[in-house]
């Protein structure tokens, strides 16, 4: 298979270069049509904020000779489509072929090539861009198979490994912490003090996990009201924090203030009044908003940006350690893909076809042989064999000769023949989706 990949991603180029090569959904149909027209038999583009990648099956009639040397034209067209030749330099682009290109797509789909390891938002993007290319009819047998396999790799990575587990942003780490202290966030209440961005993000995540109620306090009340519009909840007075602390379980502070807004003495009073019910305090302010000695109070859990970052780092390290397991899945799927490709060769298909006919013939003969007299039996065997041979003679010769068609066309033809006669035994992967569903 002449699979080629041309791409740019967060490793090879900075955002200001990457964004020049970003294709919107509206731009993709035209780009796909033109690229297919000039270079490929099939092609599709994945374009996100971190990468733009073009996958194509090189049409040897359009690009004769050594495909790898001649793909420069395709690069130029890709860059030209966005008129980005000023900023996108050859060193920003990478090219892979065959197996390596397929492996790359699998890596992308499984999240190990993402900026944040295990971030598999990308899976949905691949799916939607694939659908788009499909609608534009630039997807054929091969890319279909490739993308379906990639989507399966992504799914398997998510379910069979822990590559996507654990919070990898400070906001989520706060939620993770809350989940380690409280069983059911939907019975808990949170208070956000201040309107810093990270604090807002943490509060947003808590709301996303279904926290029962969210109150917001801010020095400028208008800003708090704006946030309430965005996140839901209610506004409380910034100057009267203590009473608001009585019936909450999670407190997030992100105020820019030179003094502490919460001291141990204050909180000691509060804790007594709330009969010592556990309180998680997440202090995202810099400088810190809450006096560190607060952590010494019983049932108060104080965490600042450093401790949240520690959770994030640890989760990232853990995700990294899963890369080997993901690579194993990728290898398995590559081998499956390889088996499928091999099965599309002419001679194994002919022998499979013959084997299939022979098995039908011999089964039927065996079933009915007793109806014939002893001396006729040998003859029955011979006659049926001849029928099968004659039936298969013309298809076999036609398959062998190929009538001057390209390798791609003959692969497609074989794909259809295998489908028609159910000759899938060389394709271990073919049955895999069924198994996945049962998992």
């Amino acid at each position, binding site marked *: 298979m002449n699979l080629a990949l041309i791409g740019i991603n967060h490793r090879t180029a900075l955002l200001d270069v990457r964004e020049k090569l970003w294709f919107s959904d509206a731009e993709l149909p035209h780009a796909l049509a033109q690229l297919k027209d000039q270079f490929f038999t099939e092609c599709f583009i994945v374009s996100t904020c971190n990468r733009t990648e073009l996958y194509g099956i090189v049409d040897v009639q359009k690009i004769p000779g050594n495909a790898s040397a001649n793909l420069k034209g395709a690069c130029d067209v890709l860059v030209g489509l966005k008129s980005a030749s000023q900023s996108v330099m050859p060193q920003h682009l990478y090219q892979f072929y065959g197996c390596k290109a397929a492996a790359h797509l699998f890596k992308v789909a499984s999240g190990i090539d993402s900026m944040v390891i295990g971030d598999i938002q990308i899976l949905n993007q691949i799916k939607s861009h694939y659908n788009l290319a499909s609608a534009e009819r630039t997807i054929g047998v091969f890319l279909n198979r490739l993308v379906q396999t990639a989507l399966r790799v992504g799914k398997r990575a998510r379910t069979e490994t822990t590559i996507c587990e654990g919070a990898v942003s400070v906001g989520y780490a706060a939620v993770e912490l809350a989940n*380690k*202290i409280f*069983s059911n966030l939907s019975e808990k209440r949170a208070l956000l003090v201040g309107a810093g961005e990270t604090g807002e993000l943490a509060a947003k995540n808590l709301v996303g996990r279904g926290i029962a109620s969210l109150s917001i306090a801010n020095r400028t009340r208008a800003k708090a009201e704006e946030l309430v519009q965005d996140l839901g909840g209610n506004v409380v007075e910034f100057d009267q924090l203590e009473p608001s602390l009585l019936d909450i379980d999670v407190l997030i502070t992100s105020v820019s203030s030179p003094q502490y807004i919460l001291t141990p003495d204050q909180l000691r009073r509060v804790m007594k009044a709330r*009969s*010592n*019910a*556990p309180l998680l305090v997440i202090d995202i302010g810099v400088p810190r908003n809450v006096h560190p000695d607060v952590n010494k109070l*019983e*049932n108060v859990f104080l965490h600042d940006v450093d*401790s949240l970052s520690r959770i994030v780092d640890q989760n990232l390290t853990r995700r990294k350690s899963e890369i080997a397991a993901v690579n194993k899945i990728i290898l398995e799927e590559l081998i499956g893909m390889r088996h499928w490709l091999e099965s599309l060769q002419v001679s194994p298909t002919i022998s499979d076809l013959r084997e299939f006919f022979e098995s039908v013939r011999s089964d039927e003969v065996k079933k009915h042989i007793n109806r014939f007299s002893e001396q006729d039996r040998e003859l029955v065997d011979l006659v049926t064999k001849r029928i099968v041979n004659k039936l298969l003679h013309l298809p076999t010769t036609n398959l062998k000769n190929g009538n001057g068609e390209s390798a791609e066309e003959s692969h497609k033809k074989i794909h259809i023949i295998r489908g028609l006669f159910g000759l899938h035994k060389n394709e271990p992967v073919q049955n895999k989706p069924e198994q996945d569903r049962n998992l």
Partner: protein
Amino acid sequence: MKIFILYFNYLLPVLYWITVWSYAKAFFRNSAFAKKVKTPLLVFTVGSHTLYLIARTIYFGHPPITNIYEILSVLAFTTALSYLTIEYITKVKSTGYFVLVISFFFQLLSTVLIQDLANANPILRSNLLGFHVASALLGYSAFALSAVYGFLYIMLYHHIKSNRFGVIYDNLPDLEKLERMATVSVVIGFVLLTVAIIVGVVWLPRAFEHYSYFDPKLVGTIVIWLTYGIGLLAKRSIGWQGRKLMVLSIVGFVVTMLSLTVVNLFLSGFHNFY
């Protein structure tokens, strides 16, 4: 039957060991295989243990409570059974290692030291007594469980407070859940102990001519009962929760262990049958 009992006596610690090992492997090494097999293994082990105890009862003609090593085996059984129940109810499957390791040691001691007593103390062949012992032992297992959960709570509490996000942080259920599990265990244990005390006091005058209500065993048991009772009362009335309550669940268990060992072996007047 004799062969069966002998065989199972040696098989049980092995089964417990395998079970504990798979729970540990699941907790500390995050092994997918161990996670899959651990609960079925536990069910199998508890099932085998049930058969063993029934076989003993039939063969020797009395329930296996006539000497301390039989009792140890029953304690191992009740602890494992209580854990299995809690795991089934709460669906929290990660804490098994910390509980089942107790069962393993109890059963190991029992296996090595057990003697087969065909003619037990006639006082111990009473239905009331069977009821008394069963509720007391189940109650003690519940206390053991609550102490384990209290201990896990305190461990996780300190890990969270001091920003240690390791294996303990990753694999234990949340603090609230641990506290609830410990509290439920204490309540169950407390009820069972109350039953055991009432039955014991009813049975006492029937079994002995000379007895005293100030016997060290009785006093010790009342101290246990009061410790847990005060804890439960403090939770209900003045809203004790979190770490303080969990410390109490551990203290209660230490007192229980003292009563079971020191008082029983060295001080007891009448409660000394073995």
